[in-house]
């Protein structure tokens, strides 16, 4: 399957990968708060970037990959910058601060996520006392993501094989119809999954939320 549910580099081995998850999560959140609250002087930004780059290298994650993923926030940044002329003098300062905060935060996020296996994150949430229902729903989203993407791809292939591409309206209608079928199939799958859960004693343990 082409789609890596972000798990791309999370199976590597480095001090960051091996770090205790609770500690890592704490550090991660602390950094995010720092970047949100501290004024972004040149020195702060440079120090942050050096720190983050160093950590990426330590974790063995290619910087090119990081840069590509960080580009995700670009549309929003451009969106804000486009409207600068409408604002008063503090414009560039505000834009700079926003830019710096956004970049440092997203890099921190990428660092955390690339050094953490999703399933381990789920287990930790469970241990931290997250409501069972929440953890279970998250793990289902993860588990069935690939199954559903596969079904969607097959539907798309089938529809493309049967009809030539026409207009945008047609595309919208076709896509909506596929989503409709996908949601129905998803519901039916959930019925079978529930049966499978029951077969392995799920409802014998009483309500589990």
């Amino acid at each position, binding site marked *: *399957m082409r789609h890596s549910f972000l798990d791309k580099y999370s199976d590597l081995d480095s001090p960051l990968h091996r770090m205790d998850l609770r500690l890592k999560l704490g550090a991660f959140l602390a950094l995010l708060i720092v970047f949100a609250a501290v004024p972004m002087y040149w020195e702060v930004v440079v120090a942050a970037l050096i720190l983050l780059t160093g950590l990426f290298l330590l974790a063995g994650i290619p910087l090119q990959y990081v840069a590509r993923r960080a580009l995700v926030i670009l549309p929003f940044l451009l969106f804000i910058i486009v409207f600068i002329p409408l604002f008063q003098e503090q414009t560039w300062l505000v834009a700079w601060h926003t830019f710096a905060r956004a970049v440092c935060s997203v890099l921190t996020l990428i660092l955390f996520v690339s050094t953490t296996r*999703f*399933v381990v994150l*789920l287990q930790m949430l469970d241990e931290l006392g997250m409501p069972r229902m929440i953890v279970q729903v998250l*793990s*289902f989203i*993860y*588990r*069935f*993501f*690939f*199954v559903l993407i596969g079904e969607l791809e097959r539907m798309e292939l089938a529809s493309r094989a049967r009809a030539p591409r026409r207009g945008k309206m047609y595309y919208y209608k076709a896509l909506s119809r596929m989503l409709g079928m996908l949601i129905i199939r998803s519901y039916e*799958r959930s019925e*079978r*999954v529930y*049966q*499978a*859960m*029951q*077969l*392995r*004693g*799920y*409802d*014998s*343990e009483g309500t589990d939320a």
Partner: protein
Amino acid sequence: MTALIEFEHYRYRYPDGTPALNDLSFRIQKGEQVGIVGPNGAGKTTALLALSGLLFGEGAIRIEGETLERRNGKHFRQSVGLVFQNPDDQLFMPTVYEDVAFGPQNLGWDKGRVDEAVKAALQAVELEGYQEKSSHHLSSGEKKRVAIATVLSMQPRVLILDEPSTNLDPHARRQLINLIESMDITTIIAGHDLELILELCDRALIMAGGRAVGDGSPRSLFRDRFLMEKHLLEVPYSLRSRTEQAY
């Protein structure tokens, strides 16, 4: 000797009224390897669901002498291990370990016992070391074996496989056949893969119209062209005489 499984004049109608099982009766003894064949709509899957306590109809189903009823249905979940046709319906946890451990955990076993059961089940399906893998990274053959492991970990009395060879390439199918052969457990295999049933089962039941219409050795049943065609099946290629091969 009390049969391990007994259906006695069992009837079941779907909520919309269509009859699915109509006076189904048969017995399975401990240690038997039984195949259940029949056309689509014969009620094979319905019978398996009823045996697993997911449906309740009229008549009796007895497991080791005890009658299966709504109020004690859940009690039998451990004894009967049903493996669905599609592993994606049965593997719903992020990792193999969690899927195989799900059953034992629900049975209330302590961590040590759960870990042992998981290890043993994965060994039985020849997938030791797969515990941390995620199901979506597995091949269809591996997924099928994990699905079997999820049921084996509960240490059931009988293993039931519904259309087990679906979507398996010849190599995976061969592995599956070898695996089932090596396991020492009462087994029921339902499906259309007659050759597989011929290889693995010492007894076969033909179901049609919600009841059993044939019961005997797979070879003699499947070779009976009249019987097979009457129930919308056909004589498997390996059993056809030279003159019949053209069919």
